[in-house]
Each structure stands twice: as C-alpha cells, then as structure tokens.
C-alpha cells in the first residue's frame, strides 16, 4: 500500500476527537516519523517521505511539536541510535505523543561551550548509579518527565573519555528544579540540582565511558532541529506584514534595510529548501551545520529591525511566566527581539559553530589544544 493510501485509510478509520488515542494509533500505524523503523512509529522510509504524511494529516490533532521539541529533536534520535530495544520500546511512543516531555541536562556552570569538561559525577553502586552535581540553563526541566543527562564516570582519563550518558528520571528523589529568570521576564530554563539521585543501570544510554560519542549525536541533531527554523510563521513574514500594515512608520533608510534583510531571509529559505532536497535525495550536505548560524543571525537582525520600525517603547509582559513553548509569534516585537538573543547561544554558540564549519567542512586545522591528553581531574579550573 502506498503512503498516501495508508494515511487516508488511517484517517478514515480513526476518530480525531480522541486526541491522545489518535496520536497513539498514528504512532502504532508507523505514521509518526516514517524514517524510523517499523514498530517504533515509522515505516523505515526515507526522511523526505515525512512531508507526504504531514500533508495528508494536516488538520488532524498534532503532538504540539514546539512543546516537545527536545524530545523529538534530540532525545529521540539519540535513543534510536544508542538505546536498547527495551529502551526504544519504553520511551519513543510517549515521547512522540507528547505524554512524556523531555529536557536536556548537558550544560553546567563550569561547562558550556566546552561541554566535555563537565563534572556531574555518576558513581556505580551495584545495579544503580548515584548522581551528584549541578546542571544549568535546562529548558523545560519544570515540566519534564525525563532528561538526557551526561555525567562524568571516570575522572582519571582525559575529559572526552570518562563520560557516560543516561536517561534521568526527573521524578526521582534528589532532583531539584529551580527557575532561572531570563531577560524576557519569563523562566523557560532552570538550574537542576542532582543530589544522591539513584538511576538504575537500565537507564544508561550507550556504553560506560562512551558518553561523549552519544552526546555528539544529540548535539548534531539539536543543531539541525534548531536550524530547521520556526514552525508557524517566519520572522521575515512577521516583519514584512508589520511593514505593510504601517505605512505611516516607513522611512527611506528603513526601507533600504528591510529590502536587504528580506533578500537575506529569502536566501536562507532557499538554502533550507535546497538542503531538504539534498536530504530527500539521500545526499545530506555539510550545509546543515550552517543553518543554525544563519537562522540565529537573521532572527536577531529581523527582530531588532521590527522594534526599531515600530518605534515601540513598551513591552507586553514582564511577569515571571513558566511557558511550555517558545512563542515568537504570539508575543510582541520586544519579546521577539529579546528571545532571539538566545538563538546564537543555545545549542552551541555561533562562535563554536564557526569553529565546527571551519574544521569539519573546510578542513582547517584546530587551534593548539592544551587539554586533550590531560586527565580530567588535573585540568586547570
């Protein structure tokens, strides 16, 4: 049966008024993410075929991808690549349906761009691991059921070697989530304190000591997910609409800048279209590593332009909200401007991404490193 027929038959035989039932059945029918294997929400097709499903399923209940972005974009591909069969069966379905929200416990106060220097300790105790440490900037930890967690299990080897990756139970005793207020007024992200948290060994993802490799998979997928751009409406169209609606605010100088930004936005859109075509044709290009950088810069320039164009001295709302999603569209220009500042920091800063492009795409040499062969415990800090 071809994919379109499969979707139509699904629609004809299921009831969309039961949202959760619909989503679970869609997963079980292999129509969640068709490039995943059969039995895990997919049909083992190419990634490009997902667009067919999305088109056929439009207007039906969705899993609110903005709310579960970390699960979809980062946890799921990592579990798929490194999880045991049991882990895949346990985690992927409720992740996709949105019944269980995920967060990312990577960054620490002392380990940001240099993630591999992280110090949250996990010590083995029989069939369990005992975790102690602090994570920071953890988006959505306050409503997460699970977290993807990187820990240090062997301090005596160089930093990239002694790490182990876990699924953290956010409901376990010893997990404490405290809000961190952001420049927008709200608190999307948190500090997470882990004190004597006991995790069974079957929550380990990948081999002991192989955490860095597992984390790389997460990070690669994170950049692709962020670079894929906003779901509902692009920042360029928000700005263009504002321009059309307010002739009284226009000036020749702003017009020149608008046209330039609009061209940049259109070129970024075309770059993304071309990248998707490459993926669909089975030739993913290195262009993917650049999309997040382009997206961050453009978002920042456009949102800064919009505030200036509107001559807006007000702000919609400074209250400390605890949002479940990042909503660029539903808020006002000032919020967009401030929130977009995070785009060049979250998921790898733009400086780090330039390093990655220079080294992995252009093949330029890395800078001299002093920390590569030193045991983690002896690193200067």
């Amino acid at each position, binding site marked *: 049966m071809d994919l379109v027929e499969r979707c139509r038959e699904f629609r004809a035989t299921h009831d969309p008024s039961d949202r959760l039932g619909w989503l679970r059945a869609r997963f079980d029918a292999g129509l969640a993410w068709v490039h995943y294997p059969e039995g895990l929400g997919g049909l083992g097709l190419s990634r490009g075929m997902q667009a067919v499903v999305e088109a056929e399923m439009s207007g039906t209940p969705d899993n609110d991808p903005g709310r579960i972005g970390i699960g979809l974009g980062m946890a799921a591909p990592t579990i798929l690549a490194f999880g045991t069969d049991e882990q895949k069966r346990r985690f992927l379905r409720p992740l996709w349906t949105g019944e269980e929200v995920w967060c990312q416990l990577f960054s620490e106060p002392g380990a940001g761009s240099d993630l591999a220097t992280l110090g949250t300790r996990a010590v083995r105790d029989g069939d369990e691991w005992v975790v102690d440490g602090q994570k920071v900037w953890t988006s959505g930890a306050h409503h997460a059921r699970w977290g993807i967690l990187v820990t240090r299990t062997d301090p005596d080897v160089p930093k990239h070697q002694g790490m182990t990756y876990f699924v953290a139970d956010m409901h376990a005793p010893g997990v404490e989530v405290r809000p961190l207020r952001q420049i927008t007024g709200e608190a999307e992200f948190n500090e997470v304190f882990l004190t004597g948290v006991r995790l069974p060994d079957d929550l380990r993802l990948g081999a002991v000591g192989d955490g860095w490799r597992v984390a790389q998979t997460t990070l690669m997928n994170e950049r692709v997910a962020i670079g894929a751009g906003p779901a509902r409406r692009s920042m360029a169209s928000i700005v263009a609409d504002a321009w059309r609606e307010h002739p009284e605010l226009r000036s020749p100088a702003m017009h020149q800048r*608008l046209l330039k930004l609009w061209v940049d936005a259109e070129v970024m859109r075309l770059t993304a279209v071309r990248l998707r075509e490459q993926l669909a044709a089975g030739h993913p290009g290195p262009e993917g590593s650049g999309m997040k950088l382009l997206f961050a810069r453009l978002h920042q320039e456009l949102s800064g332009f919009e505030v200036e164009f509107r001559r807006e001295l007000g702000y919609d709302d400074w209250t400390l909200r605890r949002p479940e999603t990042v909503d660029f569209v539903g808020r006002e220009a000032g919020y967009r401007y401030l929130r977009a500042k995070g785009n060049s920091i979250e998921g790898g800063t733009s400086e780090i991404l330039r390093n990655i492009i220079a080294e992995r795409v252009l093949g330029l040499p890395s800078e001299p490193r002093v920390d590569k062969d030193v045991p983690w415990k002896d690193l200067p800090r």
Partner: protein
Amino acid sequence: MSLLYSDVEEELRAAVRSLLADACPPSAVLGRVESAEPYDLGLWKSLARDIGVAGLLIPEEHGGAGATPREAAVVMEELGRAVAPVPFLSSAVLATRALLDAGASAPLERLASGETTACLVVPFAASPYADVPVVSHDGGALTGTVRGVVGAEVADLLVVPVDEGLAVVEASAAEIVPAVSLDQTRPIATVTFNDAAYEVVGGFSPDVLRAGAGLLASEQLGIAEWCLTTTVAYVKERRQFARQIGSFQAIKHRLADLWLEVVGARAAARNAVSLEPQAVAVAAAYCGPVAVHAAEEALQLHGGIGMTWEHPVHLYLKRAKADEIALGTPGDHRAALASIADLPA
C-alpha cells in the same frame, strides 16, 4: 523545480571544467589581458565545437542544443570559476535571448555552431528595470554611440535595440573601439554607428537583461567558489608564528562566514534559473556582493602576494566588481523587489 544539479548538468560541468583546465589556466588568462586579443576566440571555438555551448539556448530546429537556462547557468559557473575570457554571456546568452524573444530565426542558425559570434549592443551596466538606451535611425541607417558594451570587439553580428525594436547589423558596418576596462577578462568597448545599414528583426524587451542577470548570478557563484577554495588551500599551507595561518580563529571564522555566503549564493543562483522576476532579483542582489566579498577576502588572506599582478586573485576581484555593476546593481535589484515582493517604500 529542483535546486540541485541533475546528472546531465554535472556531466556538462565536468566537460567544460576539463576543457578550461587545459586551455584556460589562470596564467594563460593573465598572459592575455594586456595583449591585443583579450578575448580568447580559440578557446571560444573549442567550447562551441567540442561542447556546443554557443548554441546551448538555441532550439534544436535552429541548429542549437535546445537546452534550458539550467544548463547555461552551469556553464556560467564554470566560466566564472576560470574567469574565462570568452563571449558566452554576450553572444550565447544576451544576444541569443534577444533574438529568440524577437522571433528572429535566421541569425540564430548562424550563431548555433559558434562560427558566428554576436553581441547585444547595450551598456553592460544597463539595469533591467530602467529604459535601455536605444540607437536611433535616420532614414534607412543607424546613427549613435553605445558605450560600455561587452563582447563587441569579437562579434561578427551586432544585435541592437533601436527605437522600432531589435535590429541586426553586421559588425563591419560599425566602429568598435575597445576601452581600457576594470575587468580585463571581459573588456568593454564603444560601438559607434555612422549611417550603418540595419534590419529590424522583431521587438526588444529589457526582460533579456533580466535573464542575463539571472544567469550572471551563477557566474558570481563560480567566482566566489574559486576564491573560497583557493584561499582555504592557501591558509592550510602558509605558516606564520610556527603554525598554519588557517589555525588562527580570526581566519577560520572569516572563512566559515564566507562559506555560508557561498552556500546561500548557490541556492539563490540555482533558483534564479527559473528567470522569474523575484528569483532573479533575489539572486542578483545577493550573489553580486558575495562574489565581491569572496574576492576581497581572498586578497586579504593571501597577504602581500594577493596584491601582486602575478597572482590571479586580482582577475577575480576585477571580474567580481564589474559583475556587481553589470545588468543592474544589487541596489537596483533590491529596489525592484519593493514592488515584486510588495514591500513598498
């Protein structure tokens, strides 16, 4: 329409590239620029004979290859990468498109084989969005001067927008004086008609210039790619402070940004082969500055050697800067987007 290159396009690219690698290395281009024959007609004849580029856009019934702007764009990329001094844009794109739009088949048959070369007599800096200067006629003859024309000195046939439409004039009937040009690999000339006999073959519309601008974006992509590739290779090789200069982050980040610009230019240039107004305006507004920036970065990151006549980077800088002005500046194309994309002043 796909933004990727098809297998056929890649084969065409490989053929053009290998011919240029043999016949048009940078040293040969450099050796020619101050000679009496800056355009390389020998190379042009082999590109026409061996690969059929002269008649690429000419329909098969008129003896051409019947290809689309997609294939022409790939040729433009490769010619840009080599700063090849051949009249492809002036003859096989601009003059050919003008004749095609005018419905003039007889001259096309002469052009298809490459035996005859034509040239569209408009200033290379003319914008597709402004009135093109036309030559006036007096009785049965043309009179007037057009400056800044590319490809004129190697043309046999002049294709001239006149006040009644599009005219064809034998080159021998005009006076063609080469000018000292910023881009010595595609020099300009002044074309003067003194009572020249002509034949009107159809109408003329500035859409021809837009088509040219759309394909020029691919040439600009080729220029930028050469500059990036050459510079990346150089910074891996050149050592200062006991390390490769390409290991300094100040240099790595500039090249990473340039790579991103080239990636964007590739998507925009591919999209422009539709020759749709918006696609062309976006590509022309974006790719022109990318090529210039790539050449400027190449020069800077080569240090002193980049400033020498001997090193080819200046050929690319001059071509890129001239291309940025040609067929509408980036500002002209952006201004056009105000109405095309409904972003009024």
